[in-house]
């Protein structure tokens, strides 16, 4: 039986071929590529600066994180020092974006298990974040806010206060969501012990992000290999205990709290100063190769870049967390029911733009 590409719960154009025995899944075979846009090849044909807007399109729910990994990789390749204010701005927008992305996750996950209302609440709150982004960079989805060497522009007057207002606005709304989902008996029954991943399994499959942490492995790129100025802020890494869909949900839900914490600290610490380093007009990093990764809402987004000294990358490889996380999906759904497939798939939290590259 076919599930997707046009199915309400495959989160985009994922097609899964299910071998079913009644409602029981005996085998699942994801069929990818409906949204393939050859991002890696495209990088080889564009200058370093020209490619940046395309990073928005990888994982369109976390465009800031994509911007960040690309900008930082090139900076690493060039040995470029970024001014601290730019670092803090990057962290603030990245964490805001993480909240927005997790809100989308919670909303759509609610839809997957049949709850309509949380979806609306999540999108209402996400709208506030998008307004903030629109104020700072003019775009609501594909931001291209970061530049190699800094960010496109400083925050407009009063923007940082608006972010602080948002930090106060969100927690009560999150409590509302907790009432609707986190503590809801039906929701817990639907997600508890569904799609369990053991810590060993999670590591073997190379999972990252909430998928890994839901299984109890405390591993976060922000802590292990701090980038930007994440070493200067304090935050916890929430982990699950059982590795089921509910734990993965809870990890994401608690990450929102942690992100708010990080944003508050960034707002306190942000210094005055430039937001752009001195960058040559034409970027020609010296020949060499570099790997850099950041923690996006979906996991470790890594970029491996080889430069041959010209103004275009020689080769760029993207480690796309959605793609890696999806790989365990056939393993997870085996011997579950059709109703659980959507729960498990929802708990992986994929973005097809990223899966298909």
């Amino acid at each position, binding site marked *: *039986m076919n599930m997707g590409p046009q*199915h*309400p*719960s495959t989160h985009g154009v994922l097609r899964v071929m299910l071998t079913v025995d*009644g*409602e029981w899944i005996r085998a699942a075979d994801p069929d990818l590529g409906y949204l393939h846009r050859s991002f890696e090849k495209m990088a080889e044909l564009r200058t370093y600066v020209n490619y940046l807007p395309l990073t928005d399109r990888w994982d369109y729910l976390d465009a800031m994180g994509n911007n960040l990994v690309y900008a930082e990789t090139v900076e690493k390749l060039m040995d470029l020092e970024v001014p601290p204010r730019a670092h803090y701005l990057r962290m603030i927008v990245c964490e805001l974006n993480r909240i927005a992305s997790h809100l989308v996750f919670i909303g759509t996950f*609610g*839809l*997957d*298990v*049949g*709850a*309509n*209302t949380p*979806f*609306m*609440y999540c999108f*209402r709150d996400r709208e506030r974040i998008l307004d903030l982004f629109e104020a700072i960079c003019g775009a609501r989805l594909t931001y291209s806010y970061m530049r190699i060497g800094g960010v496109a522009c400083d925050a407009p007057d009063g923007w940082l206060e608006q972010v602080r207002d948002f930090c106060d606005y969100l927690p009560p709304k999150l409590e509302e969501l907790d009432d*609707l*989902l986190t503590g*809801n008996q*039906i*929701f817990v*029954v*639907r997600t508890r012990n569904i799609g369990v991943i053991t810590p060993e399994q999670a590591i073997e499959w190379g999972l990252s992000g909430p998928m890994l942490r839901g299984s109890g492995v405390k591993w976060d790129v922000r802590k292990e290999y701090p980038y930007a100025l994440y070493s200067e802020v304090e935050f916890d890494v929430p982990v699950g205990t059982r590795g089921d869909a509910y734990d993965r949900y809870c990890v994401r839900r608690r990450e929102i709290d942690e992100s708010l914490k990080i944003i508050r600290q960034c707002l306190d610490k942000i210094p005055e100063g430039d937001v752009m380093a001195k960058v040559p007009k034409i970027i020609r990093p010296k020949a060499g190769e570099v790997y850099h990764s950041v923690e996006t809402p979906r996991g470790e987004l890594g970029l491996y870049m080889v430069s041959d000294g010209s103004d275009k990358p020689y080769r760029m490889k993207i480690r796309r967390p959605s793609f890696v996380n999806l790989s365990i999906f056939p393993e997870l759904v085996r011997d579950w*029911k*059709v*109703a*659980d*497939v*959507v729960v498990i798939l929802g708990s992986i939290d994929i973005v097809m733009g990223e899966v298909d590259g």
Partner: protein
Amino acid sequence: MDWTYWLFLLLKMVIVLGWALLMVPLLIYMERKVLADFQARIGPNRVGPVGILQPIADGIKLLLKEDLLPAKADKYVHFLAPLVAVVPAFLALSVVPFGPITHKETGTGYFVTHVNVGLLFILGLGSLNVYAITLAGWASNNKYSLMGGIRSSAQMISYELSMGLALIPVLMIAGSLDLVRIVENLGVAKGEGLSRLLLTVPLTISFVIYCICGVAETNRAPFDFPEAESELVAGFHTEYSSMRFALFFLSEYVNMITVCALATTLFLGGWKFPFVPETGPFPLLVFLAKVMIGLYGYMWMRATWPRLRYDRLMKLGWTRLLPIALANIILTGILMIAFQ
């Protein structure tokens, strides 16, 4: 039995049918507005004042849509299924007592007809709904539809037993299967104060079980497994379009009305309300108000709860509701004997 009797009867039928047909768009509108309110949205507001004509526009649109019959579908069953859904749904309304008997000698009153086993009649019609869904799912030659149809029958065997058993305490106390007499007998009689007060305990348990099963019977959230849009696309009516789909939609809402009407009759005192006279339009208004409260409950549940998995309902029905319903019968029996 002269011709005026029959004319009057026909008039009542048309009124009941018209009322139900009017209620459905109203309910759809109400549901969309209520859901919108729950979800911090506005809801329909374009067609007519505050969007009140939206369901009517939708109905006309559905009427003018292409009547699709998928390839390899079973022509006759595919056509028959919506009729099987809609006919019992409306038919159940014919025995619902909206008010008391007004003329003792001819036995007429605020209802289409007065049957002495009205409760059995409604229960029987209610269980026909599952045939429509199973047939529709099977006839469509679509795997999602088939799953929806099978789920529907799985659901039916989960709740119906508990539902039937939950109603038995009502019958024991009322001593009748006649819906009009149930309403009258359940009122507090003279000199029965204490035992009646105690009997509200088993009746409340019955009411809760009946509500759970009633939601399951109408395939509404959180038991909307046959549709389950996030799992089965649209479930049993994936392959249905235009009026064939509209009839399914219609029957779902009429079934909701019937379930609420039955709950009103059996548990909420039917057309009676303290200090409200039982003449003129009052019984109808009281009855309608009680039904509306039940319907609002439906919408509330839909806005608040996620969907259960369908084997969980089976577990709930067989290992929770059934023993509770049985124990409830025994409790009622003992209480009635003890306080006779």
